[in-house]
């Protein structure tokens, strides 16, 4: 049952990304040219509702479905890793026109060449694992 919940949420996510066009290379290009409100509105809406929801969950000390206290672990403090890693990801995001979620959403929509992106994203992740001790964090 729980497994079906994860799959169901994934389906909602996939449909939302595809139908509202956050999975379109063209929309990403348009965003980086500041030529439409579309993507900013998309992320902004998600953020606004997410912000209200997360603050509500925290202030009311909501428990999760299993009765455990919900704890959102703060991310470790650093500038270098977020900035350098962020820039590298941003370069890839604009080139492929898709962040990790939409890569798989588009694969489902029949865009088979996304397999190339996925294979190399796995190689990129692997390289990070090998090199991480030599990188500024």
């Amino acid at each position, binding site marked *: 049952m729980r*497994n079906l919940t*994860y*799959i169901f*949420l*994934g*389906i*909602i*996510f996939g*449909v*939302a*990304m*595809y*139908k*509202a*066009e*956050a*999975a379109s290379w063209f*929309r990403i290009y*348009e965003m980086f040219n500041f030529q439409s*409100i579309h993507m900013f*509105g*998309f*992320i902004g809406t998600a953020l*606004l509702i*997410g*912000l209200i929801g*997360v603050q509500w*969950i925290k202030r009311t000390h909501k428990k999760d*479905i299993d009765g455990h206290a919900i704890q*959102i672990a703060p991310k470790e*403090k*650093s500038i270098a890793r*977020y900035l*350098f*890693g*962020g*820039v590298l*990801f*941003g370069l*890839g*995001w*604009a080139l492929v026109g898709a*962040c*990790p*979620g939409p*890569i*798989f*959403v588009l694969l*489902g929509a029949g865009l088979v060449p996304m397999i*190339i*992106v996925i294979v*190399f994203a*796995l190689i*990129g*992740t*692997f390289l*990070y*694992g*090998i090199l*991480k001790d030599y990188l500024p964090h």
Partner: protein
Amino acid sequence: MDLIMKPWPWYIGGLLVAIVMLSLILVGKNFGFSSNFRVMCSALGAGKYSSFFNFNWKSQRWNLLFLFGSILGGFISKYALSDGQSPAISSETVAQLHDLGFYSAGNSYYPVELFDNLSTYNVILLAIGGLLIGFGTRYAGGCTSGHAISGLSDLQLPSLIAVIGFFIGGLIMTHVLFPFIF
């Protein structure tokens, strides 16, 4: 029905993504799509080469199921919930893309010049893009879902730095590198 088959407005997309993120929190998980790459590396045996992949990847099985759902979501959208959707990007964007050689701009969901013509050059571009996405997301500790949506919703400063990084990278690619690449 017509409303469903047409493109959905951005606020519906944003609303649904927020609901997905909050639902995951309420079932005791956290929204972070790119973590799946690390999980997959671990499942493929990368733990032999780096301790970074030495963790109980099966505890992240839920995220792989979420990923599987998102593939299904793409399939359902394309084949059941749309009839040839092509984003109505601004005319300025279309004109710019025509100048870059993307004539499918405005009448396709994705640039067919990049994805339907698997020349060696395009394969190299997709490979480089994949490497940057895989390496960059792990280095930054998250992607758009983990930082721009979840992290910023939790008012985390590291996520703000990461999102600024995403935009610096995206702007460099779009404005500085695209004229050389395309």
